[in-house]
């Protein structure tokens, strides 16, 4: 391809084979490289005018990606905020009124946050981080407070359910066994004179041996034989309630024993100052006799009553 080249040497007047020295090659190469370097720099300069450095592009890309992730975080936070507000609303407007407890004050909810949030100096320059972090910390704090509040509510509800379970609420004698109910409670007739000692309760006429049921959960305060009451059982239900069951033929619970609603505590009899086989049933609230009729005025059907007794038999669980 390349033919042998010659140069004319004027000194020898000869054509001599053309020869390129190493030095010449080097020089040419240097010039070439210088040119290309200048060209490359120029090109890069023009490139920067129109585009951006590759790393800057990459940085901006990852910045966008990170910010979109942060946007997701903020969405999540918003969602959590609505959840929290729902809980607070329920707490304040539903549970606390029902349980008759005061709602948490706003200062209580925000205690410990405010100006003393642990926000590092370095993020102060980035509002997105600063706000999100502050919000997240505050949210966690408020949620912790709310969680504690719900724990408190749970305790209140436990007390409440215990209170409900303890309240005398059923008839001590099954309707099927009941022969007659004497509405002899005298308190309404003479609430002032004090002669209601004779009519402190209700009399359930039933056959001897008819089971008598505890009307609410409680603890047997006393079970003994007295001349007037005969075989009598006192049950303390707590929360101010006490019930008494008198004239039993026998009782089958002992002092200090815990009883559930619907549990058989004894059997109808005619002991003590009694004119016939019946149960004398008394309900006391804070030491005052009250008419037991109110504690089963909206009575259960027989079927329901049986179901309740069945449950009392099988149910060994406690509420706390």
């Amino acid at each position, binding site marked *: 391809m390349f*033919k042998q080249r*010659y140069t004319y040497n004027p000194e020898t007047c000869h*054509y001599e084979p053309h020869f390129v020295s190493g030095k010449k090659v080097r020089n040419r190469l240097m010039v070439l490289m210088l040119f*290309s370097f200048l060209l490359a*720099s120029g090109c890069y300069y023009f490139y920067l005018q129109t585009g951006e450095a590759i790393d800057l592009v990459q940085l901006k890309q990852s910045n966008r990606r*990170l910010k979109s992730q942060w946007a997701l975080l903020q969405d999540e936070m918003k969602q959590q905020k609505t959840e929290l507000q729902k809980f607070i609303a329920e707490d304040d407007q539903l549970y606390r009124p029902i349980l008759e407890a005061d709602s948490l004050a706003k200062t209580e909810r925000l205690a410990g946050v405010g100006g003393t949030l642990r926000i590092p100096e370095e993020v102060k320059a980035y509002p997105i981080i600063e706000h999100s*972090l502050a919000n997240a910390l505050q949210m966690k704090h408020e949620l912790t407070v709310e969680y504690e509040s719900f724990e408190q509510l*749970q305790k209140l509800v436990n007390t409440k359910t215990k209170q409900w379970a303890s309240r005398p609420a059923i008839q001590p004698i099954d309707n099927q066994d009941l022969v007659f109910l004497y509405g002899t409670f005298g308190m309404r007739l003479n609430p002032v004179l004090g002669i209601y000692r004779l009519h402190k309760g209700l009399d359930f006429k039933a056959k001897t041996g008819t089971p008598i049921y505890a009307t609410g959960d409680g603890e047997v305060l006393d079970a003994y034989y007295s001349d007037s009451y005969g075989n009598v059982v006192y049950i303390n239900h707590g929360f*101010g309630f006490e019930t008494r069951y008198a004239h039993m033929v026998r009782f089958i619970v002992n002092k200090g024993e815990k009883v559930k609603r619907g549990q058989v505590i004894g059997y109808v009899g005619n002991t003590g100052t009694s004119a016939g086989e019946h149960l004398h049933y008394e309900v006391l609230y804070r030491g005052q006799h009250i008419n037991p009729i109110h504690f089963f005025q909206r009575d259960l059907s027989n079927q329901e009553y049986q179901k309740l007794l069945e449950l009392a038999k099988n149910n060994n669980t406690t509420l706390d």
Partner: protein
Amino acid sequence: MQFVFNPKSLRFERAGIPWGNWLLGVLALIAFTILFFAGIAWLDATVWESPEEIALRKENKALASYYKVVSSELNESKNLISAIAKKDEALKSTLFDAILHTTEEAQTNSFEPGKNTNDITQKAIALQQQVNQLKEKAIFNSVYFSKHVHHHDASINRKLLFTPSIVPVENASLASGFGKRMHPFHKGLYQHTGIDLLAPKGSAVMATASGTVNVIINSLEIAGYGNYIEISHGNGFITRYAHLENILVRKGQQVTKGQTIGTVGNTGGSAAPHLHYEVLLDGLEQNPIFYLLQGLNTEAYEKMLTASKKQNQALD
């Protein structure tokens, strides 16, 4: 000046620089330029940092590292939320939905006549259900139309004045409806003769129609209705308001619709502060949900209607 030997003419002839050399030079220039360009770009990317890049890099680093911090905080919050939600559900079920028997069982209990495989009874029940559905539909329509109509006819207005037709407590939620409900104390099913409206203690209780205060009972009993007002509205309508904290009217007093007659309380056989509200027509207990028409939009009414159908635990 370069020469080439021409073997034909046997002479040295002048020759320019061959195109191959040119091509080589240009290719080398392009190659070197590309190499240098890449080198400069690489240096710019790795070694040289513009202030903008430094700031961005710092921001990105902060964004990435605090992303972890914030998301771990949010995770903890999330756990707290699910823990609270669990407690919330437990509380709700104990307070409102505590159903001893399953709902289906309770429902079959409430339709006991259906157990007889008597055709007529079943037809009667089906008919009853149809009637109830129609009634609901009618109520919906009347809620809708009452907004547009009731201002026009003075006589209707007057009749409406003496018909129980508002919710007796503002901003109350319905906790338990009319019908077979579970008793909070003994957990058995019983006939709940009114509706339970949940509101904080001390909320104002309004007369739902104009009328005369019929009965007032200030009761210290911790059973039954507690402090209780009964108002007679004429036309056979009677309303009852039970478990009140305070009674603000006297017996025989004339009250107007919307007048505050007492405050919500927890007296008598009540499990929590609420108003037990009953409507009687000609001595028969009516479902008060059908007498809460005014002042509620369709949505709020629908909400109450749904709540009233739930066979849950009543509050008294």
